[in-house]
Protein backbone atom coordinates (compact mmCIF):
# COMPACT_ATOMS: atom_id res chain seq x y z
CA UNK A 1 0.00 0.00 0.00
CA UNK A 2 1.32 3.39 -1.00
CA UNK A 3 2.46 5.62 1.82
CA UNK A 4 1.08 9.14 2.21
CA UNK A 5 3.39 12.12 1.86
CA UNK A 6 3.15 12.66 5.61
CA UNK A 7 4.27 9.06 6.28
CA UNK A 8 7.15 9.46 3.83
CA UNK A 9 8.18 12.71 5.51
CA UNK A 10 8.24 11.00 8.91
CA UNK A 11 10.26 8.08 7.56
CA UNK A 12 12.70 10.43 5.86
CA UNK A 13 13.08 12.44 9.06
CA UNK A 14 14.11 9.26 10.90
CA UNK A 15 16.75 8.53 8.26
CA UNK A 16 18.07 12.10 8.45
CA UNK A 17 18.17 11.85 12.23
CA UNK A 18 20.16 8.64 12.08
CA UNK A 19 22.70 10.08 9.65
CA UNK A 20 23.09 13.59 11.07
CA UNK A 21 21.58 13.64 14.56
CA UNK A 22 19.14 16.37 13.51
CA UNK A 23 15.84 16.30 15.42
CA UNK A 24 13.14 14.71 13.23
CA UNK A 25 10.81 17.69 13.68
CA UNK A 26 13.37 19.95 12.00
CA UNK A 27 12.95 17.98 8.78
CA UNK A 28 10.08 19.93 7.19
CA UNK A 29 8.80 20.08 3.64
CA UNK A 30 10.10 23.57 2.83
CA UNK A 31 13.63 22.99 4.23
CA UNK A 32 16.63 22.84 1.91
CA UNK A 33 18.90 19.89 2.61
CA UNK A 34 22.07 21.93 2.18
CA UNK A 35 21.06 25.46 3.21
CA UNK A 36 18.71 24.77 6.12
CA UNK A 37 19.67 21.31 7.35
CA UNK A 38 23.42 21.62 6.61
CA UNK A 39 23.58 18.17 5.03
CA UNK A 40 26.60 17.74 2.74
CA UNK A 41 26.68 15.84 -0.52
CA UNK A 42 28.11 12.63 0.94
CA UNK A 43 25.65 12.46 3.82
CA UNK A 44 22.94 13.10 1.26
CA UNK A 45 24.06 9.97 -0.62
CA UNK A 46 23.78 7.88 2.53
CA UNK A 47 20.31 9.30 3.15
CA UNK A 48 19.34 8.50 -0.44
CA UNK A 49 20.51 4.90 -0.19
CA UNK A 50 18.73 4.39 3.13
CA UNK A 51 15.58 5.97 1.67
CA UNK A 52 15.77 3.57 -1.26
CA UNK A 53 15.82 0.64 1.14
CA UNK A 54 13.09 2.00 3.36
CA UNK A 55 10.65 3.03 0.65
CA UNK A 56 11.49 0.51 -2.07
CA UNK A 57 12.32 3.17 -4.67
CA UNK A 58 15.27 3.64 -6.99
CA UNK A 59 16.83 7.11 -6.88
CA UNK A 60 19.48 7.37 -9.63
CA UNK A 61 22.66 9.43 -9.14
CA UNK A 62 21.44 11.94 -11.73
CA UNK A 63 18.20 12.44 -9.84
CA UNK A 64 19.83 13.22 -6.51
CA UNK A 65 20.94 16.71 -7.60
CA UNK A 66 17.29 17.62 -8.25
CA UNK A 67 16.30 16.80 -4.69
CA UNK A 68 17.31 20.13 -3.18
CA UNK A 69 14.45 20.42 -0.71
CA UNK A 70 12.77 17.90 1.56
CA UNK A 71 9.60 18.36 -0.49
CA UNK A 72 11.45 17.26 -3.66
CA UNK A 73 12.52 14.03 -2.01
CA UNK A 74 9.09 13.30 -0.54
CA UNK A 75 7.37 13.99 -3.88
CA UNK A 76 9.87 11.85 -5.77
CA UNK A 77 9.45 8.94 -3.37
CA UNK A 78 5.66 9.27 -3.34
CA UNK A 79 5.43 9.13 -7.13
CA UNK A 80 7.96 6.32 -7.57
CA UNK A 81 7.21 3.99 -4.67
CA UNK A 82 6.62 0.40 -5.69
Amino acid sequence: MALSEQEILEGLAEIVNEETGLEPEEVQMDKSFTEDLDIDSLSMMTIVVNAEDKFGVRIPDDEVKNLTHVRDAVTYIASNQG
Partner: protein
Amino acid sequence: MTDDLSTPTAPDGAGTVTPGPAPAGSTERKELTVPQGMRHARIHGLGGYRPERVVTNEEIVQFIDSSDEWIQQRSGIVTRRFAREDETVIDMSEPAARQAMAQAGVSPEQIGVVIMATVSHPYQTPAAAPMLAHRLGIPNPAAFDISAACAGYCHAISLANDMVRAGTTDYVLVLGVEKLSDFTDKYDRGSAFIFGDGAGAAVVGVSDYPGIGPTLWGSLGDKADVITQREAWTDLRPQMEDPGREDGIPWPSFVMQGQAVFRWAVFSMAPVAVEAVRAAGLTPDDLDAFVPHQANMRITDAMIKALGLPEHVPVARDIAETGNTSAASIPLAMSRMLDEGEAPHGGVALQIGFGAGLVYAAQVVLMP
Protein backbone atom coordinates in the same frame (compact mmCIF):
# COMPACT_ATOMS: atom_id res chain seq x y z
CA MET B 1 46.24 -35.58 -30.91
CA THR B 2 47.82 -32.79 -28.97
CA ASP B 3 51.41 -32.26 -28.07
CA ASP B 4 52.04 -32.71 -24.41
CA LEU B 5 53.42 -29.37 -23.28
CA SER B 6 55.61 -29.61 -20.28
CA THR B 7 54.59 -27.40 -17.40
CA PRO B 8 56.79 -26.18 -14.60
CA THR B 9 57.23 -28.33 -11.55
CA ALA B 10 58.90 -27.02 -8.49
CA PRO B 11 62.18 -28.69 -7.63
CA ASP B 12 62.47 -30.06 -4.12
CA GLY B 13 62.53 -27.26 -1.66
CA ALA B 14 61.77 -24.56 -4.26
CA GLY B 15 59.46 -21.87 -3.09
CA THR B 16 59.92 -22.65 0.56
CA VAL B 17 61.48 -20.17 2.88
CA THR B 18 62.90 -21.06 6.22
CA PRO B 19 60.85 -19.04 8.66
CA GLY B 20 62.77 -16.59 10.77
CA PRO B 21 61.77 -15.71 14.30
CA ALA B 22 58.27 -14.27 14.46
CA PRO B 23 58.38 -10.45 14.78
CA ALA B 24 57.13 -8.87 17.94
CA GLY B 25 53.38 -8.46 17.93
CA SER B 26 52.82 -11.64 15.88
CA THR B 27 49.66 -13.66 16.13
CA GLU B 28 48.70 -17.25 15.52
CA ARG B 29 48.34 -18.09 11.81
CA LYS B 30 44.80 -18.64 10.53
CA GLU B 31 44.01 -21.00 7.64
CA LEU B 32 42.67 -19.32 4.47
CA THR B 33 40.45 -21.23 2.03
CA VAL B 34 41.77 -20.84 -1.54
CA PRO B 35 40.81 -22.37 -4.93
CA GLN B 36 42.34 -25.77 -5.72
CA GLY B 37 45.04 -25.05 -8.26
CA MET B 38 46.87 -26.55 -11.21
CA ARG B 39 44.34 -27.38 -13.82
CA HIS B 40 45.21 -27.18 -17.52
CA ALA B 41 44.51 -24.21 -19.80
CA ARG B 42 44.49 -23.60 -23.52
CA ILE B 43 43.40 -21.03 -26.10
CA HIS B 44 39.83 -21.90 -27.08
CA GLY B 45 39.22 -19.23 -29.68
CA LEU B 46 40.92 -16.40 -31.56
CA GLY B 47 39.60 -13.31 -33.30
CA GLY B 48 40.96 -10.37 -35.21
CA TYR B 49 39.95 -6.99 -36.54
CA ARG B 50 41.66 -4.86 -39.13
CA PRO B 51 40.39 -1.33 -39.75
CA GLU B 52 38.92 -0.63 -43.15
CA ARG B 53 41.30 2.00 -44.41
CA VAL B 54 44.34 0.69 -46.24
CA VAL B 55 47.27 3.11 -46.14
CA THR B 56 49.84 2.76 -48.89
CA ASN B 57 53.51 3.67 -48.80
CA GLU B 58 52.70 6.40 -51.33
CA GLU B 59 50.55 8.07 -48.72
CA ILE B 60 53.25 7.73 -46.05
CA VAL B 61 56.03 9.23 -48.21
CA GLN B 62 54.08 12.45 -48.70
CA PHE B 63 55.43 13.42 -45.28
CA ILE B 64 58.91 11.84 -45.19
CA ASP B 65 61.87 11.84 -47.52
CA SER B 66 61.49 8.24 -48.63
CA SER B 67 59.94 6.04 -51.26
CA ASP B 68 57.75 2.99 -51.60
CA GLU B 69 60.78 1.03 -52.70
CA TRP B 70 62.91 2.17 -49.75
CA ILE B 71 60.16 1.28 -47.27
CA GLN B 72 59.60 -2.11 -48.82
CA GLN B 73 63.32 -2.78 -48.88
CA ARG B 74 63.84 -1.76 -45.26
CA SER B 75 60.66 -3.17 -43.79
CA GLY B 76 58.81 -5.37 -46.22
CA ILE B 77 55.74 -3.25 -45.56
CA VAL B 78 53.53 -2.55 -48.56
CA THR B 79 50.41 -1.35 -46.81
CA ARG B 80 49.07 -0.99 -43.30
CA ARG B 81 45.63 -0.25 -41.88
CA PHE B 82 44.71 2.93 -40.02
CA ALA B 83 41.62 3.21 -37.89
CA ARG B 84 39.14 6.00 -38.48
CA GLU B 85 39.75 9.13 -36.44
CA ASP B 86 36.74 8.34 -34.26
CA GLU B 87 37.53 4.62 -33.99
CA THR B 88 39.01 3.67 -30.59
CA VAL B 89 40.94 0.68 -29.29
CA ILE B 90 37.67 -0.40 -27.66
CA ASP B 91 35.80 -0.14 -30.99
CA MET B 92 38.45 -2.27 -32.66
CA SER B 93 38.53 -4.81 -29.85
CA GLU B 94 34.82 -5.50 -29.89
CA PRO B 95 34.57 -7.45 -33.18
CA ALA B 96 37.82 -9.29 -32.44
CA ALA B 97 36.53 -10.33 -29.02
CA ARG B 98 33.15 -11.42 -30.38
CA GLN B 99 34.88 -13.56 -32.96
CA ALA B 100 37.15 -15.20 -30.37
CA MET B 101 34.21 -15.88 -28.03
CA ALA B 102 32.15 -17.35 -30.88
CA GLN B 103 35.00 -19.60 -31.94
CA ALA B 104 35.50 -20.70 -28.35
CA GLY B 105 31.79 -21.26 -27.88
CA VAL B 106 31.97 -19.23 -24.69
CA SER B 107 29.17 -16.93 -23.56
CA PRO B 108 29.76 -13.54 -21.92
CA GLU B 109 28.55 -14.96 -18.61
CA GLN B 110 31.36 -17.53 -18.58
CA ILE B 111 34.17 -14.97 -18.76
CA GLY B 112 35.57 -13.97 -15.40
CA VAL B 113 38.50 -11.77 -16.37
CA VAL B 114 39.20 -9.36 -19.25
CA ILE B 115 42.80 -8.30 -19.85
CA MET B 116 43.60 -5.69 -22.47
CA ALA B 117 47.20 -5.31 -23.51
CA THR B 118 47.60 -1.89 -25.08
CA VAL B 119 49.81 1.18 -24.99
CA SER B 120 47.60 3.36 -27.19
CA HIS B 121 44.37 3.67 -25.22
CA PRO B 122 44.64 7.43 -24.88
CA TYR B 123 43.40 7.70 -21.33
CA GLN B 124 45.66 7.29 -18.35
CA THR B 125 42.49 6.22 -16.55
CA PRO B 126 40.08 4.53 -16.59
CA ALA B 127 41.40 1.42 -18.31
CA ALA B 128 39.84 0.26 -21.57
CA ALA B 129 39.02 -3.28 -20.43
CA PRO B 130 35.99 -2.45 -18.25
CA MET B 131 34.37 -0.50 -21.09
CA LEU B 132 35.00 -3.31 -23.55
CA ALA B 133 33.57 -5.86 -21.14
CA HIS B 134 30.47 -3.72 -20.71
CA ARG B 135 29.95 -3.55 -24.47
CA LEU B 136 30.31 -7.29 -24.76
CA GLY B 137 27.75 -7.87 -22.02
CA ILE B 138 30.24 -9.64 -19.75
CA PRO B 139 28.68 -9.26 -16.33
CA ASN B 140 30.99 -7.79 -13.71
CA PRO B 141 34.34 -9.35 -14.71
CA ALA B 142 37.70 -8.37 -13.28
CA ALA B 143 38.85 -6.09 -16.11
CA PHE B 144 42.14 -4.23 -16.45
CA ASP B 145 44.78 -3.11 -18.94
CA ILE B 146 48.41 -4.05 -18.92
CA SER B 147 51.31 -2.12 -20.42
CA ALA B 148 53.96 -4.31 -21.97
CA ALA B 149 54.04 -2.82 -25.46
CA CYS B 150 54.61 -5.32 -28.27
CA ALA B 151 55.00 -8.12 -25.71
CA GLY B 152 51.68 -7.21 -24.12
CA TYR B 153 49.64 -9.99 -25.68
CA CYS B 154 52.10 -12.71 -24.62
CA HIS B 155 52.25 -11.25 -21.12
CA ALA B 156 48.46 -11.32 -20.98
CA ILE B 157 48.32 -14.91 -22.23
CA SER B 158 50.74 -15.89 -19.51
CA LEU B 159 48.66 -14.14 -16.83
CA ALA B 160 45.50 -15.73 -18.21
CA ASN B 161 47.12 -19.17 -18.24
CA ASP B 162 48.19 -18.78 -14.64
CA MET B 163 44.76 -17.58 -13.58
CA VAL B 164 42.95 -20.45 -15.23
CA ARG B 165 45.44 -23.05 -14.03
CA ALA B 166 45.30 -21.78 -10.49
CA GLY B 167 41.53 -21.89 -10.45
CA THR B 168 41.06 -18.14 -10.16
CA THR B 169 38.62 -18.18 -13.09
CA ASP B 170 37.50 -20.54 -15.85
CA TYR B 171 37.73 -18.22 -18.86
CA VAL B 172 39.82 -15.13 -19.55
CA LEU B 173 39.31 -12.83 -22.53
CA VAL B 174 42.66 -11.47 -23.69
CA LEU B 175 43.02 -8.55 -26.09
CA GLY B 176 46.08 -7.20 -27.81
CA VAL B 177 45.05 -3.94 -29.44
CA GLU B 178 46.72 -0.79 -30.67
CA LYS B 179 45.82 2.40 -32.46
CA LEU B 180 49.42 3.40 -33.07
CA SER B 181 48.44 5.88 -35.78
CA ASP B 182 47.41 8.20 -32.92
CA PHE B 183 50.93 8.11 -31.53
CA THR B 184 53.00 8.10 -34.69
CA ASP B 185 54.93 11.14 -35.93
CA LYS B 186 54.16 11.13 -39.62
CA TYR B 187 57.25 13.29 -40.25
CA ASP B 188 59.63 10.85 -38.51
CA ARG B 189 61.47 9.01 -41.24
CA GLY B 190 62.52 6.27 -38.83
CA SER B 191 59.08 5.17 -37.69
CA ALA B 192 56.30 6.77 -39.74
CA PHE B 193 56.00 3.79 -42.08
CA ILE B 194 56.19 1.08 -39.44
CA PHE B 195 53.08 1.32 -37.35
CA GLY B 196 49.48 0.33 -38.00
CA ASP B 197 46.23 -0.25 -36.15
CA GLY B 198 44.34 -3.42 -35.27
CA ALA B 199 43.02 -5.77 -32.61
CA GLY B 200 43.50 -9.43 -31.78
CA ALA B 201 41.65 -11.47 -29.17
CA ALA B 202 41.92 -14.84 -27.50
CA VAL B 203 39.78 -16.77 -25.06
CA VAL B 204 41.93 -18.72 -22.61
CA GLY B 205 40.07 -21.32 -20.61
CA VAL B 206 40.10 -24.60 -18.75
CA SER B 207 41.21 -27.65 -20.66
CA ASP B 208 41.67 -31.40 -20.23
CA TYR B 209 45.24 -31.12 -21.47
CA PRO B 210 47.99 -28.48 -21.36
CA GLY B 211 47.71 -25.95 -24.19
CA ILE B 212 49.99 -23.14 -23.11
CA GLY B 213 53.60 -23.87 -22.30
CA PRO B 214 55.82 -22.14 -19.77
CA THR B 215 56.42 -18.46 -20.48
CA LEU B 216 59.95 -17.17 -20.75
CA TRP B 217 59.87 -13.48 -20.08
CA GLY B 218 62.05 -10.65 -18.92
CA SER B 219 62.94 -7.00 -19.18
CA LEU B 220 65.93 -4.70 -19.65
CA GLY B 221 65.17 -1.45 -17.92
CA ASP B 222 68.54 0.06 -18.84
CA LYS B 223 67.37 0.14 -22.49
CA ALA B 224 64.15 1.97 -21.73
CA ASP B 225 65.04 4.76 -24.15
CA VAL B 226 65.38 2.72 -27.33
CA ILE B 227 61.63 2.49 -27.96
CA THR B 228 59.73 5.14 -26.08
CA GLN B 229 56.96 7.67 -26.02
CA ARG B 230 59.05 10.76 -26.82
CA GLU B 231 57.62 13.26 -24.32
CA ALA B 232 56.20 12.45 -20.93
CA TRP B 233 52.63 13.72 -20.59
CA THR B 234 53.86 16.07 -17.90
CA ASP B 235 56.24 17.75 -20.40
CA LEU B 236 53.21 18.92 -22.35
CA ARG B 237 51.47 20.52 -19.45
CA PRO B 238 53.03 24.03 -19.65
CA GLN B 239 52.07 24.45 -23.32
CA MET B 240 48.65 22.98 -22.83
CA GLU B 241 47.84 25.28 -19.97
CA ASP B 242 49.24 28.44 -21.61
CA PRO B 243 46.31 30.85 -21.54
CA GLY B 244 47.88 32.85 -24.39
CA ARG B 245 47.36 30.05 -26.89
CA GLU B 246 44.09 30.33 -28.79
CA ASP B 247 44.20 26.65 -29.69
CA GLY B 248 45.09 25.64 -26.14
CA ILE B 249 43.22 22.75 -24.59
CA PRO B 250 43.07 21.99 -20.90
CA TRP B 251 45.44 19.50 -19.34
CA PRO B 252 43.60 16.19 -19.08
CA SER B 253 43.41 16.08 -15.30
CA PHE B 254 41.65 13.26 -13.50
CA VAL B 255 38.16 14.30 -12.45
CA MET B 256 35.62 12.54 -10.32
CA GLN B 257 31.89 12.69 -9.57
CA GLY B 258 32.31 12.51 -5.84
CA GLN B 259 28.74 11.73 -4.86
CA ALA B 260 28.34 8.90 -7.37
CA VAL B 261 31.69 7.44 -6.34
CA PHE B 262 30.82 7.66 -2.66
CA ARG B 263 27.57 5.81 -3.19
CA TRP B 264 29.22 3.04 -5.16
CA ALA B 265 32.25 2.75 -2.90
CA VAL B 266 30.25 2.46 0.28
CA PHE B 267 27.13 0.61 -0.63
CA SER B 268 28.37 -1.64 -3.41
CA MET B 269 31.82 -2.37 -1.98
CA ALA B 270 30.75 -3.30 1.54
CA PRO B 271 29.05 -6.54 0.34
CA VAL B 272 32.14 -7.33 -1.77
CA ALA B 273 34.34 -6.97 1.28
CA VAL B 274 32.04 -9.24 3.28
CA GLU B 275 32.15 -11.83 0.50
CA ALA B 276 35.96 -11.73 0.35
CA VAL B 277 36.06 -12.68 4.02
CA ARG B 278 33.55 -15.48 3.52
CA ALA B 279 35.43 -16.77 0.44
CA ALA B 280 38.55 -17.17 2.55
CA GLY B 281 36.59 -19.28 4.99
CA LEU B 282 36.68 -16.67 7.74
CA THR B 283 34.23 -14.36 9.47
CA PRO B 284 34.64 -10.62 10.19
CA ASP B 285 35.40 -11.57 13.79
CA ASP B 286 38.60 -13.29 12.58
CA LEU B 287 40.02 -10.09 11.11
CA ASP B 288 43.03 -8.44 12.69
CA ALA B 289 42.87 -5.40 10.39
CA PHE B 290 40.67 -3.76 7.78
CA VAL B 291 42.70 -1.95 5.14
CA PRO B 292 40.41 -0.34 2.59
CA HIS B 293 41.79 1.77 -0.25
CA GLN B 294 42.40 5.16 1.36
CA ALA B 295 39.94 7.02 -0.82
CA ASN B 296 38.29 9.32 1.67
CA MET B 297 37.82 9.02 5.43
CA ARG B 298 34.11 9.45 4.98
CA ILE B 299 34.00 6.44 2.66
CA THR B 300 35.97 4.41 5.18
CA ASP B 301 33.66 5.44 8.02
CA ALA B 302 30.51 4.70 6.04
CA MET B 303 31.96 1.40 4.86
CA ILE B 304 32.68 0.25 8.41
CA LYS B 305 29.05 0.95 9.25
CA ALA B 306 27.72 -0.77 6.13
CA LEU B 307 30.01 -3.75 6.78
CA GLY B 308 29.02 -4.09 10.38
CA LEU B 309 32.72 -4.45 11.14
CA PRO B 310 33.32 -5.70 14.69
CA GLU B 311 34.63 -2.93 16.91
CA HIS B 312 37.79 -4.81 17.86
CA VAL B 313 39.08 -4.75 14.27
CA PRO B 314 41.56 -1.91 13.72
CA VAL B 315 40.95 0.16 10.58
CA ALA B 316 43.58 1.80 8.38
CA ARG B 317 43.37 5.58 8.47
CA ASP B 318 46.62 6.48 6.75
CA ILE B 319 44.72 8.90 4.49
CA ALA B 320 44.83 11.47 7.26
CA GLU B 321 48.54 12.00 6.71
CA THR B 322 49.10 10.53 3.26
CA GLY B 323 46.05 11.46 1.22
CA ASN B 324 44.59 9.22 -1.46
CA THR B 325 47.56 7.64 -3.23
CA SER B 326 45.46 5.39 -5.46
CA ALA B 327 47.23 2.08 -6.08
CA ALA B 328 49.78 2.82 -3.36
CA SER B 329 47.32 3.42 -0.56
CA ILE B 330 46.74 -0.13 0.69
CA PRO B 331 50.38 -1.19 1.08
CA LEU B 332 51.27 2.18 2.60
CA ALA B 333 48.43 1.95 5.08
CA MET B 334 49.17 -1.66 6.00
CA SER B 335 52.86 -0.91 6.52
CA ARG B 336 51.97 1.91 8.86
CA MET B 337 49.62 -0.29 10.89
CA LEU B 338 52.31 -2.94 11.26
CA ASP B 339 55.04 -0.41 12.04
CA GLU B 340 52.94 1.29 14.67
CA GLY B 341 51.83 -1.98 16.23
CA GLU B 342 48.21 -1.28 15.37
CA ALA B 343 47.94 -4.57 13.50
CA PRO B 344 49.79 -7.80 14.36
CA HIS B 345 52.42 -9.43 12.13
CA GLY B 346 50.98 -12.68 10.81
CA GLY B 347 47.46 -11.41 11.37
CA VAL B 348 44.58 -11.52 8.91
CA ALA B 349 43.80 -8.34 6.99
CA LEU B 350 40.86 -7.61 4.73
CA GLN B 351 42.00 -5.32 1.92
CA ILE B 352 39.83 -3.81 -0.78
CA GLY B 353 40.78 -1.53 -3.67
CA PHE B 354 38.23 0.31 -5.81
CA GLY B 355 38.43 3.09 -8.33
CA ALA B 356 38.27 4.36 -11.90
CA GLY B 357 36.85 1.87 -14.32
CA LEU B 358 34.93 1.39 -12.22
CA VAL B 359 36.95 -1.57 -10.99
CA TYR B 360 37.46 -3.24 -7.67
CA ALA B 361 39.26 -6.13 -6.01
CA ALA B 362 39.17 -7.44 -2.48
CA GLN B 363 40.92 -10.23 -0.68
CA VAL B 364 41.92 -11.45 2.72
CA VAL B 365 45.67 -11.72 3.27
CA LEU B 366 47.96 -12.75 6.05
CA MET B 367 50.08 -9.74 6.93
CA PRO B 368 53.84 -10.30 6.82
